[in-house]
């Protein structure tokens, strides 16, 4: 390569970078920022789904000093299909979380989900064995696929969708808790608290699955949805997680952790590290780290156990080998 050509390429790259920065400045892609100086995460060890989970969860939640008095809380678990295996957030964790939040002063709890593939939500609720946890009159289940809808202008513009119809039960909540199942995902790499919010998009309007979001970009849609409906807290079910061809056909992976966080990006970054992935390589996480929450480990305070990289990272499909963290991370 001669000097002129090298200089030309260098100048072109510099101009492109400058143009990118200028474009972001002139046409910002998000109108909100939920990043705070510090975020808090707690990793809880839990060997199995048992009655002890409620005590464990309560102790974990108390570390965060949440002000929930009189609040209407929406728990958004990940309940996709009536399939065997670790597909859905475990009902014992959902039920335990609902009771803990009531004990912490919440006025009422709505467990809301709009399954992405299965149109018969009752079938998913039955298969997940959630019904026994709905006995308390302050805890109700809301089918977000068929809730009353409100047209909402999106607070970020990555997908180009501009606006979405969203369920009133979600918009009227004071405190949104995303409760993902820790899984790999054959389109998005991982499905954690941010991806879990696809479930608030109503099937009644966008179908089963919510395919329009795929055409507009999965990562881009995740960013737009989470900018518009902020997640206040995360309880990630990583006791039995899923690796390989997730989110439906993968295999069980015993991680034996529950991750709590007051920041969805910090929660997902921590989960990704527990899975042996580099969070910076997950597109919606690296971009979300600019405005949805804290991605960098030095801005995350661990209230309980540290996120060690597992000895054996989660298995991924060949297309996602790039997610694997380097050994020196």
């Amino acid at each position: 390569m001669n000097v002129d050509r090298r200089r030309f390429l260098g100048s072109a790259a510099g101009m492109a970078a400058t143009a990118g920065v200028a474009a972001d400045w002139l046409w910002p892609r998000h109108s909100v920022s939920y990043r705070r100086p510090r975020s808090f995460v707690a990793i809880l060890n839990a060997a199995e789904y048992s009655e002890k989970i409620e005590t464990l969860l309560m102790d974990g939640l108390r570390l965060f000093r949440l002000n929930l008095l009189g609040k209407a809380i929406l728990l958004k678990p990940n309940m996709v299909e009536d399939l065997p295996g670790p597909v859905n957030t475990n009902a014992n964790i959902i039920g335990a979380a609902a009771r803990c939040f009531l004990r912490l002063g919440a006025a009422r709890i709505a467990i809301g989900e709009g399954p992405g593939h299965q149109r018969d939500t009752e079938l998913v609720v039955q298969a997940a064995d959630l019904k026994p946890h709905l006995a308390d009159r302050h805890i109700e289940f809301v089918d977000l696929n068929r809730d009353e809808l409100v047209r909402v202008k999106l607070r970020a513009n990555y997908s180009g969708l501009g606006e979405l119809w969203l369920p009133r039960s979600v918009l009227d909540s004071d405190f949104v808790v995303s409760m993902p199942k820790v899984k790999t995902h054959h389109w998005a790499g991982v499905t954690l608290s941010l991806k879990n919010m696809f479930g608030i998009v109503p099937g009644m309007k966008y179908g089963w699955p919510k395919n329009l979001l795929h055409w507009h970009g999965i990562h881009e849609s995740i960013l737009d949805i989470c900018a518009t409906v902020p997640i206040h807290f995360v309880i990630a079910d990583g006791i039995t997680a899923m690796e390989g061809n997730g989110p439906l056909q993968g295999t069980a992976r015993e991680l034996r952790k529950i991750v709590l966080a007051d920041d969805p990006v910090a929660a997902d970054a921590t989960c990704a590290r527990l899975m042996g992935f580099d969070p910076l390589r997950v597109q919606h996480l690296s971009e979300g780290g600019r405005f949805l929450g804290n991605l960098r480990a030095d801005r995350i305070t661990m209230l309980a156990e540290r996120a060690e990289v597992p000895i054996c990272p989660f298995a991924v499909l060949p297309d996602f080998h790039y997610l694997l963290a380097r050994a020196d991370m």
Partner: protein
Amino acid sequence: MRLLLKWQFPDGSWPAFQGDSEGSWTTGLALSTLIAMNGPADSGARSLSWLLEERGKEGHWLWRWKFKTTDHSVRFDPDRFGWPWTSGSASWVIPTVFSVIALKQFTACNRRERAEKRIRLGVGMLLDRVCLGGGWNAGNSVVYGVPLPAHVEATAIALLALQDEKRTPAIQASLGWLKQRSSSIESVESLAWCILSLFVYQEPVEHLKARLATLIGDGHDIRNNATLATAILALKCGEMIHPFEVLR
């Protein structure tokens, strides 16, 4: 009927719900309702035009080319496309079924070539997406080389669109799968669709209707109007015009 006509858009389509401004998957359902209730022909004709124009996004030549040449993560024939849930997305089983049924019903006495071609394309798409072992998932049968399991509701609904087609091995296998699954289903919505579907295939449904009635009880626990309406149609199956029946 008055409300149904009021909510129809000038282009012939219907929104997914009152207040939405885009045509949607409900258009096929609305047209079937219009036919069952002997609604105005011009309204039906406009709806027919919209259905003939609408297609899944993968039906565009550029996407067909992409799925044929570079993107093989999902196994399907891109030349066979149906209808989307909402414009701008791909074809899926249930919106395709409702559109095929409506087209078959509306053109039963006078079917032109264009409607026949579109029906064949939709039926072809449904048959292309049958799960291994019978039945239908939401849209695809194999993703990343792994077969997807069939869904009860999607299978029951898909069979409705194929009731007048030749009983191919795929249809027979799907019917067998549904009969077997219907004996253990405990959900109102899926069981109601099973009854509506098995009835048009002249399978016995009285025992399923009895179970559905027990599941419904006084109806207080059913908070979804679509489920309630489907359940009532299923319970009345055989006593009134079947809204999804296609004349042979």
